[in-house]
């Protein structure tokens, strides 16, 4: 869009847009892997979570939260540009013609 490549991700039915460029060395993020991640945990414990919500850069493997664009290792400073995605239904179906209708003296009047 407007010269920028933006990836749209479907995470459990909700849609999220992320710039297709890693803030590190500009790798194409859309060629990375979508998976979960082990949450920060006590030594020796593995707590796998957030399946389908984490995007890993295809080069250096940095993890990004698809929902926010923020990196896992430094969410405040290192992030991917995020774009709002909405699903809208198209109004004014052009295949149906409409005609003005009015009520005049108890009669419904349709003019073509």
């Amino acid at each position, binding site marked *: 869009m407007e010269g920028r490549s933006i990836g749209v991700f479907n995470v459990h039915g909700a849609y999220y847009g992320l710039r297709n460029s890693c803030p*590190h*060395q*500009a*790798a*194409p993020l859309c*060629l*990375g*892997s979508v998976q979960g991640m082990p949450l920060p945990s006590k030594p020796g414990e593995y707590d796998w979570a957030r399946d389908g919500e984490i995007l890993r850069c*295809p*080069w250096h493997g940095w993890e990004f939260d698809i929902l926010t664009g923020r990196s896992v290792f430094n969410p405040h400073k290192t992030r991917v540009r995020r774009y709002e995605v909405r699903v809208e239904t198209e109004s004014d179906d052009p295949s149906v013609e409409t005609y003005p209708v009015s009520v005049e003296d108890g009669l419904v009047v349709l003019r073509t």
Partner: protein
Amino acid sequence: MIETQPRQEPQQATRHGVVDCDVHPSPRGADEIRSYMPMPWRDRYSGGGRGFFGNPVHGARLDSSPPEGGAPGSDPDFLRQQLLDEYGVAYAILLPRAFCNLHPDPDFGTAIAAAFNDWLAATWLDEYNGDGAFKGSITVAHQDPAAAAREIERWAQHRHFVQVMMDSGARAPYGQRQYYPIYEACERYGLPLAIHPGTDGMGINIQPGPGYPTHYIEWHTCLSLGFQAHLVSLITEGVFERFPRLRVVLVEGGVSWLPGLLWRLDAEWKALRAEVPWVQRAPSEYVRDHVRLTSQPLERPASDQQLLHVFEMMDAQNTLMFSSDYPHWDFDSPTHAFPKLPAALHERIFSANARALYGLA
């Protein structure tokens, strides 16, 4: 003193652009390597990497698998498109990963090295190399230095082999005398010796540091320890006095540790010179004259200015050469891995230093 034979360099047009000093081509499969092996090795060889300490995330860039199939780095057209064309790389120095330095049987290691050299010469340095952009490394098995020297001799006059390569993984530091046949051959034919990580702690090789780490992140971070030990050994054993035209390239072994190590070694030498009286100059001077480092994976402190200070401390304008490590996962992009450099320094690191070392037009 050993006379250096000048290498035959045919007339070649100047190719402008970046020189990438660490690029990894792969065979299309183990069978391709086996086809260059005599029996019994052809039956014995089944490919294989280093065994342990695989990257738990991914070992190669996920976008580097060729669209037509095959391993990353196995399709020359795709490599050209993704590296040479994308970044204006004029020359790619190729370092295949044979993992031959870990085998306990030196004859097997030597056979694997020879097959990789035959394969590289027939394909990437010939069939795929119409424009001469690919320059190769002669793989040697350091388990048998005499055989390694013969392998160097076999390829020394090949116009596209520009250096000799062995792993940083070893059983003893590289200054020790058992390795001297390799250095003598490198010097005789004017070929730099590249040391590349790969089999540290694997097979017969010793893990540098206090033992086997648990995780890949430890193993991979500490690869630079082996390089530091090899460099200290090369200098203090007097290798550069014995082989005054030998040049060593430390590939993928880290960059920013160099100034601190040399300050320490120079200080030790002032007191302990008498223990190694053949070290006739300050150790740091041997590095300036004999050693080059490739950049990837370049350390990036929070402040770019700090890295530029490190470059000044290590005389990067003479010692540092750009490398990407394509197609591996920690690829350094020629356009994004470095902070903004002064134009003259950029030219030295990205092109001139490597062209001077390898004799490239």
